[in-house]
């Protein structure tokens, strides 16, 4: 279980120059990281592995002549996965795959733009900014259970959305309107999350940097793109990465707001849920596994393409910058 941690060995003769830090660094690191890793592996690792195992089995699908479900599970290899891609189920899977991807791209882009704007607003000094800050964070603070109900009611046929717009749109029926309602509700709820993380990033930028930029006569746009963005990039990337992970697993909003079995907003998480709701745990685990793999790939690509500051720095920058500085 903790092999990755215990496998960490101090690399001999590498950082002898560094005081205090280097004695048994690996063992120390293992010790310090073990609480995190133990909790994660126990509470998440174990269920993931049992779900992966489950995806290779099928159970409770046959009924004996007496009308009872035959107990026990049966190893079926990759059949559950093969079934997902065949025929009608395949169409449904690809539709859900498309929806999941579409929601993720649209929502995360909108949320990032809005979130950065929010962070700039919260960062600004003006009278009553505490109130502004708090109000920006309100949507994020409302429990999902409640906000889904709230939006459901807003988008009801005789709800306030139609009244304000003067329309008769049936939001929960299939089509663009249901997609739009999910995007609006999701953006509203989670843009503040990005805003908050970016704000924290903004706060660590020393004033002197801005002053220097001003002295150099940089335009606000230039200051933003050349100074602010690069400096908040680590925080922003973490925020965006976690939003991507979350949105790829989106479930509550389309399920509560629009409803199950609606092709326009059916996502991979919903498919996994519906299968397990019908007690088909094997296929449900197969959907969950596929979604998991998809997310792993997306996250990997994201970190590879953009995330040098976040994760790569350890590898790339270490030999030059940090050690050089230490040595000097």
């Amino acid at each position, binding site marked *: 279980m903790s092999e990755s941690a215990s496998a960490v060995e101090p690399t001999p003769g590498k950082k002898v120059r560094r005081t205090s830090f280097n004695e048994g660094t690996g063992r120390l690191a293992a010790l310090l990281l073990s609480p995190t890793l133990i909790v994660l592996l126990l509470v998440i690792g174990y269920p993931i592995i049992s779900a992966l195992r489950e995806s290779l089995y099928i159970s409770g699908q046959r009924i004996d*002549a007496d*009308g009872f479900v035959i*107990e026990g599970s049966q190893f079926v290899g990759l059949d559950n996965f093969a079934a997902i891609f065949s025929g009608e189920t395949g169409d449904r899977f690809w539709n859900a795959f498309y929806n999941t991807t579409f929601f993720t791209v649209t929502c995360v882009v909108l949320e990032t733009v809005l979130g950065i704007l929010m962070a700039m607003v919260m960062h600004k000094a003006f009278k009553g900014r505490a109130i502004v800050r708090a109000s920006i964070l309100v949507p994020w603070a409302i429990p999902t259970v409640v906000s889904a109900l709230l939006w459901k009611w807003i988008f*009801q*046929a005789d709800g306030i959305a139609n009244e304000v717009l003067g329309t008769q749109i049936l939001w929960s029926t299939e089509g663009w309107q249901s997609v739009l309602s999910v995007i609006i509700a999701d953006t509203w709820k989670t843009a503040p999350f990005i805003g908050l993380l970016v704000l924290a990033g903004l706060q660590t930028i020393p004033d002197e940097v801005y002053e220097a930029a001003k002295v150099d006569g940089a335009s606000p746009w230039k200051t933003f793109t050349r100074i602010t963005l690069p400096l908040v990039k680590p925080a922003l990337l973490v925020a965006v990465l976690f939003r991507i992970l979350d949105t790829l697993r989106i479930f509550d909003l389309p399920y509560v707001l629009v*409803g199950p079995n609606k092709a326009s907003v059916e996502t991979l998480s919903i498919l996994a849920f519906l299968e397990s*709701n*019908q007690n088909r745990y094997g296929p449900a685990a197969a959907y969950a596994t596929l979604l998991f793999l998809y997310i792993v790939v997306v996250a990997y690509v994201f970190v590879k393409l953009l995330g040098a500051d976040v994760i790569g720095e350890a590898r790339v920058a270490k030999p030059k910058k940090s050690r050089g500085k230490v040595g000097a």
Partner: protein
Amino acid sequence: MRFERSHTRKAVALAVVSSLVLLTAACGGGDDGGSGNNGSGGALEGRGPIKFATGKDTSGNLKNQVDAWNTQHPDEKVEVAELPESADQQRNQMISNAQIKSTEFSVLNLDVVWTAEFAANRWITELPQDQFPDLGKLLPTTVDTAKYRDKLYAVPVTSDGGLLYYRKDLLDKAGVEVPKTWPEMVAACAKVKALPEGKAINCYAGQFEKYEGLTVNFSEAVNGAGGVVVGDDGKPNVDTPEALAGLTALVEGFKTGFIPKAAITYQEEPGRRAFQDGNLLFHRNWPYVYALANKTDGSSKIAGKFAVAALPGLSGPGVSTLGGHNYAISEFATNKATAADFIKFMSSEERQKANVEKTSQAPTWASLYDDPALNKQFPYLAPLKASIASAKSRPKVVKYGDVTTAIQEAAYGALKQPAEKDPKQTLTDLQTKLSSLITQ
């Protein structure tokens, strides 16, 4: 009825033999699970405190009921485990407890449509019918929902049936009778719409959002036209002219505007709201609407202006779909004797009466519907009794979830505008789908 039963008994005997063969053949594959499968339902043993898993106590009256039990049985106290409001969540909590064979819940409050699934998976215990002598005094249709393959697995405690709510004031004004059939209802609406005060009103709505309510409404349309979704023999038989007539009536309703467009998004509550706001002339809903629509605190614009009748059929009386809840004992419960006594207690005439008085939930005890005092308090009891007595159950199949999803999928596709398929094609496809789901 009698013929059917002896017939089934023979089938069961045959089935036992063949399943024994199957069991010996399949014995290699892991444990054979619940061995309490010796037909007569294992003895209900064990006394002590139990937990009763139910959806949220809606009226606050459940506490009174349980308190009454607890004062009489201090050593066998019942604790209520309240599950979330959504039926999906309730079912999931119960199933996940059964999956891990948890002894946590002893008595389960099951929606009628879950009985088959829970019984077939051996998540609930078979009940010896001779220990529940009062079953004969309950409405037979409700008792039927508690059985799976002719064995008793639960006791019905509350029931539910659809009613036609109508605007009495407007019908009187237009001088039309209460419609008994769908065409009469269409004609009545036309007359009311000719009145100055009826101009803006919508004619009819039920529950047509894609959820369980659509299965209910679709089944009522089909049954009310003389068709069936799943026949008494347990085989789907929905590709018939009768079923087609029933579905076509709904489809035409949407096309002609007899049913307002927004009704495709209606669950119970939005429909009730439209009716209470005076926007609907006819409305199919459950008994709970009665008290709420009669409130004089300003929430209802039609208090005192409406009445209820039996559902209309296509050319005769309509057929309601049966709702309600059954109490069952978890297979993994420890104090099953207490659990059985508690179920008897809750389904007794005295307790059911106390419950009706406080909650307006439909009882299963037949004689309560004829109680004059209750009838005075709830004027809908007479039509409700008729509705429940002639009501049809939804298919009693293990994979009910798949079946209802298929029905919703088909009905929704036909009703939404523009429709995905014409009614004929819808039913043909639904028949194919149901056949593949139910034969297994």
